[in-house]
């Protein structure tokens, strides 16, 4: 089978952003790619399209008669077969067509394969940008070609063309690409309505994200200080058809191209879950497609795999959101042992309640996190409930009460509230317990990998504290990008792919299970 190089289309964006995330430590966001597409004729973007999905992409920016090569990425399972050269050949051809004088790019010194490819294409090092890569502090090598019209460059361009011929006879072993579950090239349409986000996503082969659409209802719940289940259910019914249509359209496919359906059937708000389950059963009846039921929490685990495809069990995961706070040991995919969980409020709930008490509005997480950055986390000694107990359970309602009591006392004493200090001290109390229990879970299981997932894992201080604690023990930590922390259907598609590979499907009488467990 072969790949072909063609211009980037808007419908490729989902796949390109997913590949960008899997390739670069500081990936461009979807918004940055959209900005690029709006730049018009000064840019040219190409993708390598194949029966295995999008295998790579590259961009050219024209600046005053010279060309800058923007991101060039090749999917891990397709490297070494000429895909990069084919993309480079397309960029070179475009540069010649535009009569550009020379081409330049930046590359990591540690990326030997890329440097070799660029050198063969006539690029050579002309300088360094110190500390250019923010994630590692590594310098960037600045490479330039000679004049494109010169003889040596014409010869180099011909060499690139020869290498690029490899894409006519590609062999891609999807099993060897870190894929979880079935190696098939299924196209899954996934639906998620467990709380207050109506989401749909299309994914090929459990990993190649073609589209992901999330309709958030936050604005409708905000003035009530939390999710109102009846409003959530009503908004799901209103949004679901449009969200699914948009996911299909962004993926550039029709419902006839889908090979399986996946839907979150628990845990979550029962009235919200039944909308997604009933709708998905309707789609399944109408199309004859298999319908896979996905546990929302398993979805959060698979969100990490989407971001870092080489994540594999055994690992320990901390799932922390507005509805859940638990530590899960995962010795193998599909085998889950909940080691501990909250006995009362979920962490996100505690953030929302404290934010409400401080008059910060909803959702509370981002508001408290922003304020906390300016405060002293040691200013007020809020309790660290259960930090010394031998188990791995959490309790957060006492902390919330302590914060509310503190606020009342200060107000009664006529003192002004130091909001940043309160936010920072509250947040530190939450984080201390989360980190302490997470470390204990990792020690108990001897896990070498630790995942966090769920909406609260978007909290930068929590991410940093967990990263520090895990780094100190040589444990790899996986933190999904922000749009995969919060509820989405991409993760449901990935988990659905895994469940489909095991042949697990829902029948026509399937129910929503609001208290569905992971183990």
């Amino acid at each position, binding site marked *: 089978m072969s790949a072909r190089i063609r211009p980037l289309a808007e419908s490729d964006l989902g796949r390109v952003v997913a590949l960008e995330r899997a390739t670069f430590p500081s990936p461009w966001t979807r918004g940055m790619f959209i900005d690029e597409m709006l730049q018009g004729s000064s840019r040219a973007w190409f993708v390598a399209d194949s029966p295995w999905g999008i295998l790579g992409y590259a961009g050219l920016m024209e600046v005053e008669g010279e060309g800058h090569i923007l991101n060039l990425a090749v999917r891990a399972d397709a490297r070494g077969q000429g895909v990069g050269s084919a993309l480079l050949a397309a960029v070179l051809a475009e540069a010649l067509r535009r009569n550009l004088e020379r081409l330049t790019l930046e590359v990591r010194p540690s990326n030997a394969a890329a440097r070799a490819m660029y050198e063969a294409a006539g690029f050579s090092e002309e300088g360094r940008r110190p500390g250019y890569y923010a994630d590692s502090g590594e310098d960037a090598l600045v490479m330039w070609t000679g004049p494109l019209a010169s003889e040596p460059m014409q010869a180099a361009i011909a060499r690139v063309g020869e290498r690029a011929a490899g894409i006519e006879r590609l062999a891609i072993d999807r099993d060897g690409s870190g894929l979880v579950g079935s190696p098939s090239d299924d196209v899954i349409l996934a639906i998620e309505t467990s709380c207050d986000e109506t989401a749909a996503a299309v994914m090929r082969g459990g990993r190649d994200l073609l589209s992901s659409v999330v309709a958030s209802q936050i*604005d*409708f719940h*905000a*003035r*009530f200080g939390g999710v*109102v289940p*009846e*409003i959530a*259910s*009503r*908004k*799901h*019914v*209103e949004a*679901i*058809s*449009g969200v*699914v*249509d948009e996911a299909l359209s962004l993926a550039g496919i029709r*419902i006839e191209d889908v090979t399986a359906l996946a839907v979150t059937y628990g845990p979550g708000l*029962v*009235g919200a879950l*039944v*909308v*997604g*389950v*009933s*709708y*998905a*059963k*309707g*789609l*399944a*009846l*109408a*199309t004859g497609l298999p319908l896979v039921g996905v546990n929302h929490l398993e979805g959060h685990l698979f969100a990490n795999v989407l971001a870092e495809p080489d994540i594999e069990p055994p690992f320990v995961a901390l799932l922390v959101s507005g509805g859940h706070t638990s530590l899960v040991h995962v010795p193998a995919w599909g085998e889950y042992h909940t080691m501990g969980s909250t006995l009362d409020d979920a962490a996100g709930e505690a953030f929302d309640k404290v934010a409400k008490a401080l008059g910060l509005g909803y959702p509370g997480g981002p508001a408290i996190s922003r304020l906390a950055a300016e405060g002293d986390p040691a200013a007020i000694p809020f309790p660290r409930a259960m930090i010394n107990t031998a188990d791995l359970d959490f309790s957060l309602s006492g902390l919330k009460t302590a914060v509310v009591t503190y606020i009342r006392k200060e107000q009664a004493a006529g003192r002004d509230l130091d909001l940043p200090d309160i936010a920072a001290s509250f947040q530190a109390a939450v984080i201390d317990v989360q980190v302490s229990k997470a470390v204990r879970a990792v020690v108990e299981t001897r896990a070498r990998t630790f995942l966090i997932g769920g909406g609260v894992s978007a909290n930068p201080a929590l991410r940093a504290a967990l990263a520090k604690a895990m780094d100190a023990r040589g444990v790899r930590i996986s933190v999904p990008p922000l749009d995969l922390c919060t509820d989405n259907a991409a993760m449901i598609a990935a988990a659905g792919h895994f469940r489909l590979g095991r042949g697990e499907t829902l029948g*026509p*009488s*399937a*129910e*929503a299970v609001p208290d569905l467990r992971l183990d």
Partner: protein
Amino acid sequence: MKLTLAFDTSTEEVATGLGKIGTRGVHLLGETNIDVPRASLTHLFPAITRLLQSADRAIGDVDAIVVGRGPGSFTGVRIGVSAAKGIAQGRGVPLFGVNTLDAVAERFSGRQGLVGVIGDAMRREVYPALYRLSGHTIERLTGDAVASPSVVAAEWAALGEPVLLSGNALRKYADVFAGAMGDRAVFAPEVLWTPTGESLLMVAWRSYVRDELGDGDPGTLLPVYTRLSDAEEAERVRDGSSGPWPRSGVAGPGPTGGVL
């Protein structure tokens, strides 16, 4: 003649019907009506499958979907409407909504006089709807509303003529209507208190011949709620708001509940 699949899950019953709708009426191919309180998500799809099998038809033969939009149990209505959206979108066929109370009144087609349908709205309230039947025409006299049973009973007692009463709220409030209306309250037998597959198709046919079925877009069809969520109702009381009722059933994101 369009082969139409109709169903309703707004009451304790799951009603399904399959029939051909044409200008002159409905040719019913089959229906199933089962009493499965609070379990419509479990029973709806198996019922549809059985209905299609018994009529020797496949889902691929269906040209249109009709669903009961309520009013009724909020969750029940959403199960039916969501299922209908999924089927219509998956098949690429139009989806039309009918009022669940209309489908109850339809069961008395051919009689003369007033018919009052009261659906159970929980929380000691009912969804009332009044109809005038004459020959084979059915005229709806009141809009969608939610009210206390005693208020509805008093209004209907003041009409000065007998009212044939139906609807699943009679299980709870028959004595309220008997007390207020005396001899003018005529109770229909309980088997006629809910919609059926056939009555749903008949209501759709009436809309079809009046060209009032709507555009068939599954994306825009919404349930009939008549009440906001408790949180928003409490907010409206607190703010003294009495603006028009939002069609979507959610007041909107504004601080005082802007109207969509």
